[in-house]
């Protein structure tokens, strides 16, 4: 349906007035945001700022999925959580903060791991997915599920002083998927987590904020304004030129997920774990 002034309450007009002023948003953009359903997988260093800015902007329904609880060592970078919510499931800690930031946003929480068992049922409920997780097996699984269900995916990662961001399967069925860019997983001995390698808060924070921005751009852009050249945003806090925009390849014809012979259903937990060389599956 076309946007109508009836779509926003008086309080919402006031609340969003500073972005309603922007010609790139305006009433059509704001109603598109309000009607959209965005899922954030992982409410940690990336998910915290992404959720804050998406809730602030007035996404209609935000989904949060994470099976972790808040820990002290999260708080230097996971700025959505609080010392007083240590021990709570992250999705509950986050929902509390987000509802107080913007009560107009509906929050749906999944206090569970994202697995091949629930991936399709969960992803099917949402319009856009943010990958804010921290392991390649989850990254392949989320991408496969987004390809299978035709959802665009805003994927970011960070470690130490560096970060990467790419919008995948956008538009669905046309843009490259995670497997187009990385057809084979890295060897397990090369995989370093934030727990092992460390990460600086504002580095992962900047990547999460950029995920929120890309999501808002994706939801509010005019039809036909999809970018054709995939780009990766690459960040390095120690480099002289901290931010670089890298031109990436498009869809890979022979991609096992999104290619002509594409994916028909997700693999099992064991298959994703084996593919990425990690034995203890989705319990990480």
């Amino acid at each position, binding site marked *: 349906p076309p946007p109508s002034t009836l779509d926003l309450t008086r309080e919402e007009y006031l609340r969003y007035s500073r972005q309603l002023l922007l010609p790139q948003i305006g009433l059509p953009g704001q109603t598109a945001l309000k009607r959209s359903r965005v899922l954030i997988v992982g409410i940690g260093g990336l998910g915290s700022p992404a959720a804050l800015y998406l809730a602030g902007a007035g996404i209609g329904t935000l989904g949060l999925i994470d099976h972790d609880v808040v820990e002290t060592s999260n708080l230097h970078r996971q700025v959505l959580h609080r010392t007083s919510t240590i021990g709570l499931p992250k999705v509950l800690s986050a929902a509390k903060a987000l509802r107080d930031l913007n009560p107009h946003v509906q929050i749906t929480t999944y206090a569970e791991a994202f697995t091949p068992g629930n991936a399709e049922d969960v992803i099917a409920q949402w319009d856009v997915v943010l990958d804010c997780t*921290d392991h390649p097996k989850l990254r392949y699984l989320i991408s496969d599920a987004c390809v299978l269900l035709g959802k665009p995916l805003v994927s970011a*990662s960070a*470690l130490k002083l560096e*970060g990467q961001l790419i919008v995948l399967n956008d538009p669905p069925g046309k843009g490259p998927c995670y497997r187009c860019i*990385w057809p084979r997983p890295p060897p397990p001995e*090369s995989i370093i*987590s934030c727990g092992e390698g460390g990460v600086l808060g504002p580095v992962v924070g900047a990547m999460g904020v950029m995920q929120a921005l890309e999501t808002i751009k994706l939801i509010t852009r005019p039809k036909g304004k999809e970018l054709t050249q995939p780009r990766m945003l690459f960040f390095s806090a120690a480099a002289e030129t901290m931010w670089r*925009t*890298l031109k990436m*390849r498009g869809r890979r014809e022979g991609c096992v997920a999104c290619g002509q012979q594409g994916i028909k259903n997700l693999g099992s937990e064991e298959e994703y774990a084996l593919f990425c060389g990690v034995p203890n599956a989705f319990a990480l």
Partner: protein
Amino acid sequence: MPAEAMAPPAAETKTIPITVEFSGGLELLFKNQRTYKLSVPDVDPSTNAATTVGYLVKHLAADVMVDARKELFVVEGSVRPGILVLINDADWELEGEEEYVLQPGDAVLFVSTLHGG
């Protein structure tokens, strides 16, 4: 045509100046140095053809890399899975991958994929 023109060309070694950059942790395999200014021969001695990025990868693994775990950079003669190669900020798959012929001033960036969040 004067006789000297018939002689084989003098073995002039021309070199191509390039910049190589490592990130995403790969710099740790290369003396923890992010950026290298290198000169590579314009002709690959093993093929007698113009020097490609494929040559550069082998050269880096053999002569520049200090870490003994070569498999963290090269597997079966190619860059290992999980490393993106960017030539002048474009994915090398847009440029012909290993076949890409190096040009003076090229910047080649090796990025290890990050997974943290």
